[in-house]
């Protein structure tokens, strides 16, 4: 048996109130008010498809007893690097074995489901991870801005402890251009929704699904969880009817809570469906884009035992209300903000120097002294313990999964930060070690000496001059 063995999810904490978007834009397009229900997830300035992928995959790994990973595929149409394999950054941030197979899959909203099919049909020995992560930009005042969200989800494919057994899949490839984003564009260009519904969803999806169900000797009514990722609110139910699927089986795309997360949406919805499913439930997962992927899973009785640290429910619950549309525009470079002269300093990353400290910068690895047991970060040649000072005596010691406590802190309004004030401070790790580091996700008045922290892989700085961004770990108040 092959199938899904675990899942993990990540939704950025910040949830932008949609009425705030409508209020700012209804002067131009009053129809936005009709979409102004609930909220959508938005990446913090220091989040992107890589950082979200790290979070979701970490969550997925937390549910696996055997954490030996065979491969890591990253699906997204919003990868920060066009030529520097993004999945390798995710892999190194998670300290996965450097002999695993990594791959970036992109260029379609079907990227994640297609990658999933190839993993399910491949010869997977250990856990093969598929992470889908999306941080789509949309024009200010667009319907997309209202309907989309940012998120990531990861599933593990394997043969033991399967929680959702793979039954079969079908793919139709059709160059149906509901939208596209060209090489030189920052934003999607899309065609009329009604045409997309009638000529796209209603024609292409049934063709694939009916072939699949027929081959499996199943009927539409057998499907207990029907996942159709789309930002069209009513289309999934309408399509379910056409397919003979009970409308109760339609998995809600959470448009009013998160927004549709592009390539991540099918995987996030699959995780959500498994999380809610009972043993024996049939899941039909669709990926739509230049055709259609349709995948059938049967939930096993092992599913109930799969307990990622966060999961979809946990990710939904970990939220912070955001009402400042302006901030969202700034974070997404939709506004040319005066960020001050302190922001002008050169942000060049010296790649050879970066490479030397990659274990610290990406892996968040410090040292533990073999002689005296002192845990320390950064790891330098001599042990920091004044009673020891042993030379080259430290073993790798990973801090990414450690909890910590604020020793000292401040909210710095002088230094440049994309989201001032800049919070940072001295962090003391449970189990030893301390580091002066940046904080993220801090809410005013909710940090003090003694606040508990967890560690998160985030963007440290953008080098806009050279199109580079560097990452490091930051401390966030425990959610």
């Amino acid at each position, binding site marked *: 048996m092959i199938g899904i063995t675990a899942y993990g999810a990540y939704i950025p904490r910040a949830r932008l109130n949609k009425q705030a978007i409508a209020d700012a834009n209804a002067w131009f397009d009053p129809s936005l008010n009709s979409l102004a229900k609930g909220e959508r997830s938005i990446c913090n300035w220091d989040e992107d498809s890589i950082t979200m992928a790290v979070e979701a995959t970490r969550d997925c790994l937390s549910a696996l007893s055997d954490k030996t990973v065979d491969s890591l595929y990253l699906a997204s149409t919003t990868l920060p690097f066009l030529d520097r394999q993004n999945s390798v950054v995710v892999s190194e941030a998670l300290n996965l074995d450097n002999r695993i197979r990594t791959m970036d899959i992109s260029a379609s909203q079907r990227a994640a489901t297609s990658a999933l099919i190839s993993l399910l049909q491949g010869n997977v020995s250990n856990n093969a991870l598929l992470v889908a992560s999306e941080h789509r930009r949309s024009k200010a005042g667009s319907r997309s801005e209202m309907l989309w969200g940012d998120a990531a989800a990861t599933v593990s494919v394997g043969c033991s402890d399967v929680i959702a057994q793979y039954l079969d899949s079908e793919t139709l490839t059709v160059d149906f251009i509901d939208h596209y984003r060209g090489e030189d564009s920052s934003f999607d260009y899309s065609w009329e929704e009604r045409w997309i519904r009638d000529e796209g969803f209603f024609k292409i999806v049934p063709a694939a699904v009916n072939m699949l169900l027929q081959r499996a000797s199943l009927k539409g009514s057998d499907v207990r969880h029907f996942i159709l990722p789309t930002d069209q609110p009513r289309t999934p139910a309408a399509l379910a009817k056409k397919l003979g699927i009970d409308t109760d089986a339609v998995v809600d795309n959470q448009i009013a809570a998160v927004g549709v997360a592009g390539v991540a949406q099918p995987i996030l919805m699959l995780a959500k469906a498994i999380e809610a499913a009972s043993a024996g439930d049939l899941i039909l997962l669709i990926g739509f884009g230049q055709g259609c992927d349709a995948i059938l899973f049967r939930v096993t009785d092992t599913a109930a035992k799969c307990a990622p640290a966060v999961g979809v429910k946990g990710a939904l619950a970990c939220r912070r209300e955001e009402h400042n549309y302006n901030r969202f525009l700034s974070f997404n470079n939709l506004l040319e903000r005066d960020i001050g002269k302190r922001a002008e300093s050169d942000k060049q990353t010296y790649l050879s120097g970066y490479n030397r400290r990659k274990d610290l910068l990406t892996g968040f690895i410090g040292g533990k002294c073999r002689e005296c047991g002192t845990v320390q970060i950064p790891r330098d040649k001599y042990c920091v313990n004044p009673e020891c000072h042993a030379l080259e005596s430290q073993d790798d010691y990973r801090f990414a999964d450690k909890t910590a406590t604020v020793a000292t802190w401040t909210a710095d309004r002088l230094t440049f930060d994309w989201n001032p004030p800049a919070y940072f401070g*001295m962090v003391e790790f449970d189990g030893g070690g301390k580091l*002066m580091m940046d904080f993220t996700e801090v809410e005013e008045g909710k940090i*003090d000496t003694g606040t508990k922290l967890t560690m998160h892989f985030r963007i440290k700085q953008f080098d806009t001059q050279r199109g580079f961004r*560097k990452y490091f770990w930051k401390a966030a108040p425990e959610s």
Partner: protein
Amino acid sequence: MASGIKDKVVILGMGCSKFGERWDSSPSDLMVEAFEECIADAGIERKQIEAAWFGAGIDTFNVGSSAMPLAIALRLNYIPVTKVENMCATGTEAFRGAVYAVASGACDIALALGVEKLKDTGYGGLPQRTRGVENDMYWPNLSAPGAFAQLATGYRAKHKLNKADLKRAMAHVSVKSHANGVKNPKAHLRREITEEQVLNAPYIAEPIGLFDCCGVSDGSACAIVTTPEIARSLGKDNLISVKALQLAVSNGIESSHESWDGSYLKTTRIAAQRAYDEAGVKNPKAEITMSEVHDCFSITELVTMEDLQLAEEGKAVTAVLDGTFDADGSNPCQIDGGLKCFGHPIGASGLRMIYENYLQFQGRAGARQLSDPQLGLNHNLGGFPHQNICSISIIGHYGQ
């Protein structure tokens, strides 16, 4: 066993430029201004200077690298000139170089000059600058107030103080220094402020507000040093000598080892004890009659009072509020206005502090003259509380 620096070297002359937003003055102009006063005070000719130490902190916004800017600005006679940079301890480092050279017998007369041009950046506060290729990759992008705000939270947590009490004591530190600065014609900020103003000012880095920060200024200060014998032979009496010169540099314990809790300056404690031992000071509170400390921020001065043993540990808030360090208190601190009113042209500050000692001991401090000061302590702290350099000099009457 080393015998230390006490009374081996005396100050022959000193000079100090007017500190402030010297829009029309280049670093060279500032150097010349300090030097002209200094050499006239020393009563020697330029050609008698045998070696020089030049302190400048931030190359990018100042004079550039190397010792040449000093040699060229002062037209020094192809003598050895050494450029030193050790963050905020830079001025004292230049002085240490010159003093050690004379003490070693390598030369008879040496010059120390520090300068900094901070106001050519186009914005307020210290210049934004790199902390080094590797550090920039993972250090927070911390400003100086952001770094020293950590000291306030660390100190407050350690001594279980409430925010308001600590903030009020911090305010008193600034109010006191401004009251002193009014009386100093060379200070940058010369107006009194009230506790209410300090408390109501906007935060720069919580809990550090605008008036908890020292000024940002251009300036230069300069000293010529020699041996007591040569000073006498040049007709000088009332000699002012160096009693101690100490430096302590963090080795990573504060930033990476659990033994430091963020509530005090480890380097200051170490350098202070060494300086007291070198100067033969047994009871700092009774013997140090004036101090010029590194009040980059009010909290730094407050905590430094404990680290220098001028206040009991955990009791600086009370000592400050009781007026111990006010002009009329038992241990006046920043009688010249401090960094608070002079600003902190990095290369110059340490020498500016010694200049105030020198004036006070000679009875030349005008409206702010203390009555019969005996020993003056000068303290600089470069870097951040968790990783820094502390320099301490003790100056006094020669032979006493």
